[in-house]
């Protein structure tokens, strides 16, 4: 039996390779994800181990507000300067150095633009001298307040040199400095992991990076000879008390690395997501291929049964084939995954300005993931066809191969059941009834919906394919192609379903993002009563800010009626971490943003008062007069009294604190300014004057309102394009499926093709016929995908109605593109089978002897 299986496997190389390719791609993503995170993880470990090399113990103050991933760095509580002295007095301490180092020092390069790092922080620090790690390459140490050093990587990126006068943006707006020196790191490196560093004198660093003098972000300690690090750590901790975090250098380095790795897991999830899509499509493909193989081998299998093979042996033989394909695909996928993981790690390292990559290794998770996924998917997909094979009666060997069209009742009932399960899961997940498992419930719902629709597809395929094909019926080869595509509804359906998955995902994501965008810009256009807006696109952990003085100066410009500056930061409010905002003039809430009070007075705000949105009021049970403790980034906790409640909408902050409190935000500068003009004033006249005022804030621009909205929603567009491009992969895999199905059709219908050629069908017509068969299938898949995707997208949008996504936008243009893409996919997939069909030897096809 084993031999027979192996032989039949070899005889069907091409078909199995085509379907195996889908598994290869899926496995590639799975193992690639693991290889990437493993490689980058070890690289980060090395970077941080380096950075904390000379540090035996590190002392920092506990941060006031814990922040999560993608919310920027925690604003650490500064360590008072006198702490350094206290640490020095602890027995066993050889030396203690106060360090200032915080993200957010942006150098303006020689081209006048802010140098960005694409990910790694831009550290502003105090110069504490050279060490084993830090080496002065050129120039000297900073002595005056306007002298700085930059690392060699930053000097190169900004094209600046010793002696240059440059601007640096910090917590404060642009200030000018002279570069007096350039430093590098041990081993001749220009940067550590792409981090940009600007070194100030200690007092300047304290002022610009911490916003207060006489304090440090942390204190690094070297142990005296013979003193163990952990012992020293405990001693220092005991001496300083509970307000400080005292850790050994190794601990800090491991933690810092772990935080970055956490961020990487996002990357990992994206790759695994694509793996899931590839594998889902691959499952359809394999199921189809094995069904086809079993159908083709009906006689052969029946003969085996006739000569005594048992049902189990038949199942075994098909499953064995699947195992072989799965194994091979896993091996190839693993190899490709290691390659793609290494490539991505390399790209990542380069993009982030020269991360020194650790050697590529294959973590066990990649191997287990590859083989687990590859084998399981293939075998599960082959199980159904294997069962079908085992039901072939021995008598089939003696009869003409009859492939009666089995009724679609069972599959339709199953499809309806699975689809409604999917719909139920989606309803639960989107409606927020799934408890803590919302994401899993929604994903499960989507998966079930896909499988369910795929099962229903044979039923739908008949009328839809008939209708679609009607377009081509005026042309005889077109009509034949259409009829052929309707001949085997199951095969057509599963081929189309593979394409459906990719198209549905693209459509769904597009519907959601377009609806979000439209809702936000619609709301902004309705509500914001400002002709001009100052603001910048967010590229780093925080939105760019500008000098509050600009607000005052703008208000004084002729033609300007009202200026509202918006501040924002994360704060601990009660027991929840949330976004709070502040307005330079609280009356702009109503006058510019159209806020409507539902309780209290929202037009003024005392120093101990706060305003909340109706949503926050409802969820926290607040009313006018309630008191709430608020912990801002740079201040002690303070209790505020709710003095007013406004109707919640997307444009308004959930919580508004007085502008005086904004001084205690991480960055005490406005992130946006809204300018209302006097009647008759021309925006074009005012705009250049505001631009002049913003000369020191190159990250921020002034634009008219629509351009501002456009700028704010642009990240959504970028995200959409990225997802669309990545999902093309699913569509590429579906092409393999269509090729597979068509190649088989051509093979099965050799005699028919011969007959058609004999009665005068030309080569071009033959190719046309096959192409139309493919196009009908692929356009059907595209339409199905658009329908399913629109449904899923609309469901999500509906669920997000309460979140302010009120518009449902169906992307007709994109849908048109996708139908076009579907047709193109069909044409491409048809090329090889069509050429094959056209080359069929007429005589060989019809001769019966």
């Amino acid at each position, binding site marked *: 039996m084993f031999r027979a299986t192996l032989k039949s496997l070899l005889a069907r190389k091409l078909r199995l390779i085509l379907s195996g390719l889908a598994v290869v791609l899926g496995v590639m993503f799975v193992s690639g994800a693991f290889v990437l995170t493993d490689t980058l993880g070890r690289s980060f470990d090395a970077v941080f181990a380096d950075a904390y090399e000379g540090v035996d113990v590190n002392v920092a103050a506990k941060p006031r507000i814990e922040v999560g991933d993608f919310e920027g760095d925690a604003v650490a509580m500064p360590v008072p300067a006198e702490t350094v002295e206290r640490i020095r007095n602890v027995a066993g301490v050889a030396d203690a150095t106060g360090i200032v180092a915080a993200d957010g020092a942006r150098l303006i390069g020689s081209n006048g633009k802010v140098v960005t790092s694409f990910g790694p922080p831009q550290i502003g620090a105090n110069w504490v001298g050279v060490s084993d790690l830090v080496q002065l390459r050129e120039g000297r140490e900073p002595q005056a307040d306007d002298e700085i050093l930059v690392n060699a990587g930053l000097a190169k990126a900004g094209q600046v040199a010793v002696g240059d006068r440059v601007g640096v943006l910090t917590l404060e707006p642009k200030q000018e400095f002279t570069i007096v020196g350039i430093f590098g790191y041990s081993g001749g490196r220009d940067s550590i992991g792409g981090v940009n560093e600007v070194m100030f004198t200690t007092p300047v660093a304290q002022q610009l990076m911490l916003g207060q003098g006489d304090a440090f972000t942390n204190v690094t300690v070297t142990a005296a000879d013979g003193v163990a690090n952990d012992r020293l750590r405990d001693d220092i901790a005991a001496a300083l008390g509970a307000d400080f975090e005292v850790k050994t250098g190794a601990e800090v380095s491991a933690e810092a690395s772990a935080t970055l790795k956490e961020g990487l897991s996002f990357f990992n999830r994206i790759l695994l997501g694509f793996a899931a899509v590839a594998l889902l499509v691959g499952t359809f493909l394999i199921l189809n291929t094995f069904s086809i193989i079993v159908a083709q081998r009906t006689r052969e299998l029946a003969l085996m049964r006739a000569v005594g093979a048992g049902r189990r042996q038949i199942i075994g033989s098909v499953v064995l084939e699947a195992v072989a394909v799965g194994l091979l695909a896993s091996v190839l996928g693993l190899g490709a995954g290691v390659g793609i993981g290494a490539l991505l790690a390399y790209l990542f390292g380069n993009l982030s300005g020269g991360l020194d990559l650790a050697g590529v290794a294959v973590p066990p998770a990649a191997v287990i993931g590859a083989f687990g996924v590859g084998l399981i998917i293939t075998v599960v997909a082959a199980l159904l066809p294997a069962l079908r094979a085992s039901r072939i009666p021995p008598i089939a060997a003696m009869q003409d191969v009859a492939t009666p069209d089995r009724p679609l009742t069972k599959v339709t009932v199953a499809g309806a059941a699975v689809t409604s399960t999917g719909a139920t899961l989606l309803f639960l997940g989107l409606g927020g009834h799934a408890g803590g498992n919302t994401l899993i419930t929604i994903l499960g719902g989507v998966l079930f919906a896909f499988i369910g629709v795929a099962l229903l597809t044979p039923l739908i395929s008949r009328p839809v394919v008939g209708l679609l094909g009607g377009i081509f019926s005026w042309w*005889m*080869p077109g*009509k*034949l192609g259409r*009829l*052929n595509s*309707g*001949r085997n509804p199951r095969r057509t359906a599963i081929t189309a379903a593979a394409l459906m998955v990719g198209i549905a995902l693209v459509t769904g994501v597009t519907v959601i993002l377009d609806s979000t965008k439209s809702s936000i810009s619609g709301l902004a256009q309705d509500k914001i009563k400002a002709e001009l807006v100052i603001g910048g696109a967010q590229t780093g952990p925080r939105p760019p800010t500008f000098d509050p003085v600009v607000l005052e100066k703008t208000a004084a410009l002729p033609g300007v009626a009202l200026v509202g500056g918006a501040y924002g930061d994360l704060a601990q409010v009660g027991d929840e971490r949330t976004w709070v905002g502040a307005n330079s003039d609280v009356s702009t809430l109503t006058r510019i943003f159209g806020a409507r009070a539902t309780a209290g007075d929202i037009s003024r705000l005392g120093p101990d008062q706060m305003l909340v949105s109706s949503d926050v009021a409802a969820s926290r049970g607040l009313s006018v007069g309630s008191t709430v403790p608020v912990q801002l980034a740079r201040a002690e906790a303070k209790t505020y009294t709710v003095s007013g409640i406004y109707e919640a909408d997307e444009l308004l902050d959930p919580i508004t604190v007085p502008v005086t409190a904004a001084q205690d935000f991480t960055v005490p500068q406005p992130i946006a300014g809204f300018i209302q003009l006097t009647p008759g004033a021309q925006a074009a006249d005012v705009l250049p004057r505001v631009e002049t005022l913003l000369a020191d804030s190159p990250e921020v621009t002034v634009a008219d309102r629509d351009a501002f909205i456009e700028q704010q929603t642009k990240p959504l567009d970028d995200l959409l394009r990225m997802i669309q491009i990545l999902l093309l992969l699913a569509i590429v895999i579906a092409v393999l499926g269509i090729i597979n199905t068509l190649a088989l059709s051509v093979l099965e219908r050799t*005699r*028919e093709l*011969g*007959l*058609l*050629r*004999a*009665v*005068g*069908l*030309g*080569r071009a*017509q033959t190719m046309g016929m096959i192409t139309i068969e493919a196009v009908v299938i692929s356009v059907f898949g595209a339409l199905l995908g658009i329908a399913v995707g629109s449904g899923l997208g609309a469901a999500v949008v509906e669920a997000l109605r309460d979140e302010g996504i009120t518009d449902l936008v169906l992307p007709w243009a994109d849908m048109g593109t996708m139908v076009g893409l579907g047709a193109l996919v069909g044409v491409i997939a048809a090329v090889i089978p069509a050429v094959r069909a056209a080359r069929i030897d*007429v*005589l060989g096809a*019809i*001769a*019966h*002897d």
Partner: protein
Amino acid sequence: MTATVGRQAQAAARASEVWKVYGSGEAQVIALRGVTCEFEQSRFTAIMGPSGSGKSTLMHCLAGLDAVTRGTVSIGETTVTGLGDAGLTKLRREQVGFIFQQFNLLPTLTAKENILLPLSIAGRKPDQAWFDTVIETVGLRERLGHRPAQLSGGQQQRVACARALVSRPQVIFADEPTGNLDSRAGAEVLKFLRNSVREHGQTIVMVTHDPTAAAYADRVVFLADGQIVSELIEPTAETVLDTMKKLDTQVEVGD
């Protein structure tokens, strides 16, 4: 022996000095050895011979389905030998009709669509009067909307005959048209073919190994070992059978 069977009537198809050789060296098989033969217009000719005599090969070469090794084949005014695929396609569309033993119809099309298939492919309009005549002759008017799976074997073959006739080709080549039919259905098809020759002047060349089928033809050409060895005009089943028997003994003696 090469029979000179040419008549005064104009030839619808002609083979002259046709050789067909398969393979080379040791494995070489000579299927046709310089066959020269004409098939007159408006006549029903049967080609007979034992298995391996080359009768099917001759028909395939005549119809342009297979290329000849040497010699020339022509249909009507057209020289088939040397035509490319486009030329052959045009020839099949305009001058040749086929009836095969099996796989004669497209399962996806109705009987009517199958009949009109060659015309549709060529983008020609059917002559309604002629179409009606053909349908009447084959007696399929009631079944035009049925698909092949809903027709009996004999009905299917009649549809195939109608398809070959409807475009009025120079020649219809029929390859064992009754091979898959029971004798009654076979007789119907053969009668119908003979009528189309007698009443409508159609030219038909039929390959068969069945003496009864051959007896419906106006003339029978016998092949053995790739050569034309004999010929009968106005044959009956008995004369055909006798000739076949003779051929068999000749072959045995020859061996």
